[in-house]
Every structure is written in structure tokens, then in C-alpha cells.
């Protein structure tokens, strides 16, 4: 079996579920004939036809809004926003309607849909093509927010997202779309939507991260290991709802925690994790909870984007500083 990339795992999951369930349809800008600007929907038009694979007009609120209507009718739309930076015109539809229809009708109508968007920086794209505003959505009741960080997790989590009876925002870390290849059996096996993944076990410090930053975090963990620091790495993956149990258990063991994310620091998801540590894990903490994050500024244009994205060096520095507490 040939190994596939994260991007290809997305396509594989979409094709699998569209075959298995006629109600699944995909829609978005440039997703049909062109197969998506990141080629994640390639081949679907040919296989499933233009009624189920829809090139929509260029209008994001519309993409979200019609998906809600479709979902209320029992379809399972998987709608793509071309980049996370273009999801905001749809913000109202997503948070005021998709996330609330079940509650508003006390279960009569619901929104089994997935909003997909490539997210994060580091691909040398223009302004607005590098957003990481997952925390905005993690604040919204009624949503689930899922971020895969490997081909296998992309496949299994996307299947779970499509099968989930409620709306899921599925953010694809585009910087690692093609960075790693993996064997991903096309077996239709979904992964759980309410569990963190422990990518590596260790005893001295817990590094909590998700998305493309898993890459720098794992590299930092390797380096630290060589320096004699035993590192546990957790990929949160589903950031809403948040599986704090896994994180708290880990920190209870390691007694130190650094959270790494690319998003701007203030009110990022790192804040929620640190807050829960301050509430439920305070007594186990030996050292301040640190966050290694993007700055409180917008992702710079490509010339300076590397300065913004949390680097291995910044992670190392942070861990080294809290290793001083004992």
C-alpha cells in the first residue's frame, strides 16, 4: 500500500464516506472541476457528479448558510472554505445558526455538517492565507473543532467529523499537508472526537500542542531528550470539546507544562488550557505554565512569517526555563 500525505488522506476520507453515504455532498469554491486549490477534493467530481460535488459562487456566508439548509434536510454537507482567512464572512451563519439549530428547535432540526478550511501559516502565501484563529471557534457553544496533525489522524478524524450529528469545524494545517507520508488503510475507521493523542511519553515536562506546531514540538522534544529531559507530547487534535483529562493526568505526572500554538497569544486556546491547569492542576505544578505562541499581531507577509511562527528554539528556551523549577 502506497503511503499518502495529510492532503491525500483528506481526499481518501471524503471519497470513502461519499461512497458509503449518499447524503454526503461536498461544496465550496473551486472544489469540483479544479479539485480544490490544495487538491484535497481531486477526483470527487468525476466519481460523484456535479450535484454532489458543487463549485459554488464566490460567497462564504452563502456556503455556510446553504449548508445549514441542506443539513436540516438530512444531507451531510462537507463545505470547504478556501482558506481560514476567508471563513469570517460566514462567521454569523456558523455561530448563530449551524451551532444553534439543534438547541433552537430542541432537537427537531440539526446540522450534521463539516466546515473544512486549510489553516495556519508558513507556506509563503499572501495576506489572509495564514490564519490560525481556532480559538474563536472554540469559544462557540454547539461547535466541535478538530485539527489533525498526521495523515492517519486526518483520515480518521475527518470520517468521525462527517459522521458526527453536529457541526464540526475541521481545520487542516496546510503547512504539513505534504510534509509527511504514512500508510493510511482506507478502512473507514474513524477516530474518537473527544480524545487528545499522546504522541510521545515522558516524565519531566508536558508539551501540549496541535496542528502544524506538532512538528516543531516533536523536534524540540527530541533535542530535549538528548539533553536528558524526558518529554511528553500531546496533540490536542479535538480542541472543542477539550479533553483536559489527558492533559491533567500528564501534568500530574510531569508537573510542568508548556503549551505551543501558532495563533496570537491573547485569548488563544493555550489560555483555556492554562486556565484549567490553574484551576484543576494547581497543586501539581512545580513551575509556571508557559505558552509559546504567535505574537499579538497579525501573521506577517511571507518575508517575516518565520519570525512569527513558534520555532524549535523558542520551545527549547521555554522548556529550559521551567526546568529550573524543581
Amino acid at each position, binding site marked *: 500500500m502506497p503511503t499518502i500525505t495529510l492532503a491525500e488522506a483528506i481526499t481518501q476520507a471524503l471519497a470513502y464516506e461519499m461512497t458509503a453515504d449518499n447524503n454526503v455532498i461536498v461544496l465550496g469554491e473551486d472544489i469540483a472541476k479544479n479539485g480544490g486549490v490544495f487538491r484535497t477534493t481531486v477526483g470527487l467530481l468525476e466519481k460523484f457528479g456535479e450535484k454532489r460535488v458543487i463549485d459554488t459562487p464566490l460567497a462564504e456566508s452563502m456556503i455556510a*448558510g446553504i449548508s445549514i*439548509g441542506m443539513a436540516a434536510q438530512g444531507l451531510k454537507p462537507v463545505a470547504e472554505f478556501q482558506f481560514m482567512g476567508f471563513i469570517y464572512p460566514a462567521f454569523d451563519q456558523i455561530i448563530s445558526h449551524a451551532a444553534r439549530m439543534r438547541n433552537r428547535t430542541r432537537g427537531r432540526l440539526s446540522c450534521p455538517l463539516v466546515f473544512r478550511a486549510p489553516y495556519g501559516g508558513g507556506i509563503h502565501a499572501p495576506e489572509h492565507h495564514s490564519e490560525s484563529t481556532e480559538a474563536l471557534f472554540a469559544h462557540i457553544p454547539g461547535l466541535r473543532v478538530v485539527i489533525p496533525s498526521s495523515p492517519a489522524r486526518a483520515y480518521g478524524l475527518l470520517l468521525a467529523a462527517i459522521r458526527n450529528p453536529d457541526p464540526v469545524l475541521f481545520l487542516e494545517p496546510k503547512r504539513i499537508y505534504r510534509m509527511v507520508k504514512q500508510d493510511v488503510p482506507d478502512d473507514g475507521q474513524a477516530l474518537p472526537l473527544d480524545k487528545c493523542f499522546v504522541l510521545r511519553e515522558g516524565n519531566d515536562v508536558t508539551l501540549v500542542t496541535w496542528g502544524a506546531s506538532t512538528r516543531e514540538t516533536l523536534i524540540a522534544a527530541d533535542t530535549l531528550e538528548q539533553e536528558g529531559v524526558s518529554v511528553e507530547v500531546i496533540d490536542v487534535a479535538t480542541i472543542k470539546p477539550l479533553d483536559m483529562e489527558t492533559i491533567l493526568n500528564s501534568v500530574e505526572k510531569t508537573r510542568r507544562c508548556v503549551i505551543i500554538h501558532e495563533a496570537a497569544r491573547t485569548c488563544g486556546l493555550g489560555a483555556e488550557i492554562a486556565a484549567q491547569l490553574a484551576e484543576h492542576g494547581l497543586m501539581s505544578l512545580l513551575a509556571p505554565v508557559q505558552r509559546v505562541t504567535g505574537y499579538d499581531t497579525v501573521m506577517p507577509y511571507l518575508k517575516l512569517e518565520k519570525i512569527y511562527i513558534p520555532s524549535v528554539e523558542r520551545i527549547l528556551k521555554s522548556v529550559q526555563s521551567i526546568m529550573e523549577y524543581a
Partner: protein
Amino acid sequence: MNVVATFTVTFTQILNEQGDLIQPLPDFAKDAETLIMLYRQMHMLRALDARAVIMQRTGKMGTYPSALGQEAVSIGMGAAMHKDDIFVPYYRDQGAMMQRGVTPTEILNYWGGDERASNFITPEAKEDFPICICISTQLLHAAGVAYALSLRGEKRAVVTGCGDGGTSEGDFYESINFAGAQRLPIVYVINNNQWAISVPRNKQTSTQTLAQKAFAGGFEGIQVDGNDVIAVRHVVEQALEKARKGGGPTLIEAITYRLCDHTTVDDASRYVDKPDLDKAWELEPFKRFYAYLEKEGLWDAQKEKALQEECSARMAEAAQACIHTAPAQPTDIIDYMYETLPASYQYQRDELSTAKLPEGH
């Protein structure tokens, strides 16, 4: 400089403000029972609104948007629909919602602040959408519903609508543009009641008509006298027929007037000129319909009195039912956010399960 495209907007009126026929009657309107049923439904709506306003004034109701003066729009539209069509209303569409089987008690409970009221008990309404507060957002839901119907090859159509103010929202336009592009089975009914709260129609847009906005979506836009229930039902019926046959969307601007405050928390006397309002009262939908029915020998003052009493009694009953609806559980506020409550929110549910219901229950 060549002319490459031409568009026109028409206006339909069947019954004028004196109650004279100025157009041949559509078939449905040749049936006395049908006419009386329409008139009856208009009265039910007026009575519901009157009751809701009383309830609100006496502290038994939240903010309520009456449809006073616009009964012919809601009722004509509702009457034109087939049972298996789907309705995606805006917040002033309680008339059509009742025709679809939503009970007056549900409507009162909704505005009284109870989410359970949108879990319609009538099976016929089960695919219809709940009241939508965010202006014009529902128009996109409606287009999505219409897409689903067309994908499945069903011969059903969707009716949706908004107010004159609602036509200024981007979502209005994105909806008509998508509906046009996909030739969806959908009818948009704009209740042009001349006001968006305090903002008059002519400040909302400089277009000569609202109907012409349909041209930006690539389909037909027409005007109808929104005080003429026969005309409204007629044009909506025709548009629905067209939609079910694959002829695509229609936008109907129903011209009427809001004879009430925007809602019970508004005071329209701040911005509506009395003479304009007086003039509008002369055009309102009951008077002309009564005159016509009377001329046709179908109606008289006695029947009118009996009907008004019946409607009023019916709504008083609904109000009682609303007031006596058993309180919801505090845990309801979290139990419907997700199909299955994620484990990490369970502690919040536990906390809610010990919460005391607020006073007043």
C-alpha cells in the same frame, strides 16, 4: 452603444382598495369557502397579535412583533403553499406559520421565551424552519433546503421571506444569486411594510422597486399589492407552480404598510407621520376584502361579529395554554447543544441540574 438586455417589473392587484375586482379572479378565488377561509385566517392572525400585545403589556410575554396591516401577505403566502412545501419564515410570519400547523400557543410560547416552542408539535410543520431573528440569514437556509429538494428530484418548493429592510443584507443577495445560479425551487416573498423599525423604505435603498433586486439574481421579480390577499395568494401560487416545475426562483415584493409599532418595545409615533399612517389605514387588507365578500353576498356584520368573537376566544385560550405551560428544566439549556453532551461539559450539566428555576415559575 447597443442595448443588450431589458428587464421589467410588473405590479399585480386583483381587488382594489374599494373592494372592486380590477382583474379576473383566479380560480381558487371563485370558491366561496376558500375566500372565507382566507378571511378567517386573516382574522385569526389579527386576533393572535392583539392577544400577544395584551399579554406583553401585562408582563406575560416578551417582545412581540405584530403583523398588523400585513395580514394579507402572511395569509396569502401561507395559503398558496402545498402541505409538503417547506416554509422558512422570518419573525413576522406567524400568520403563515399558523396555516402550516404551528399552534398559536407555540407562537406565544416562543415570544414568551421558551425554546420548546420551535419543536413544533404538528407533524406537517416538522421540516419547516423556526423563527429566525437574525435578519435575512434564513434566506440562505431556504436556498439550501431548496437545493436538497432538487438534488433528490422532489416536486416540492420552498417559501421564504424577509422585510423591506432585510433586502439590504448581503445574505439576501447571496441567497438569490445562488438560487438563480442553480435554478432552485424557491419563492421569496418580501413583506415591504415600508419600515425597518424606524428606517423608511426609501432610506434602505434607492431602487424604484424591491422586486428589481431579483434581476441581480438572474430571475423574475414582481410586485403585488400586499393588502390584497387574493392577489398575494395568486402570484405566490403561480411562482410555486413554476418552481415545482423546474422554472426556478421568483421574488415577490408585496407592498403593504406596518400599521403597528415595530414590536412591543418600539414606539412608532416617534418616526411615523400621522397622515401617512391614516392613509395607510385606508388601504389595509380587511376592509376591501370585507367589502368584496359583502357585495358577493358571502358576508355580513353579524358573521363578522361572530368570527371576531371566535378568533378572540381562540386566542384567549391559546394565551391561557401559554401561561400554563409547564416550566422547562434548567438542564434543557445544555441538553440540546449537542446530540450527545460531550463528557467535558457534564460537570456543567450537573451544576444546572441543581439550579433553582427563577421566580415567576
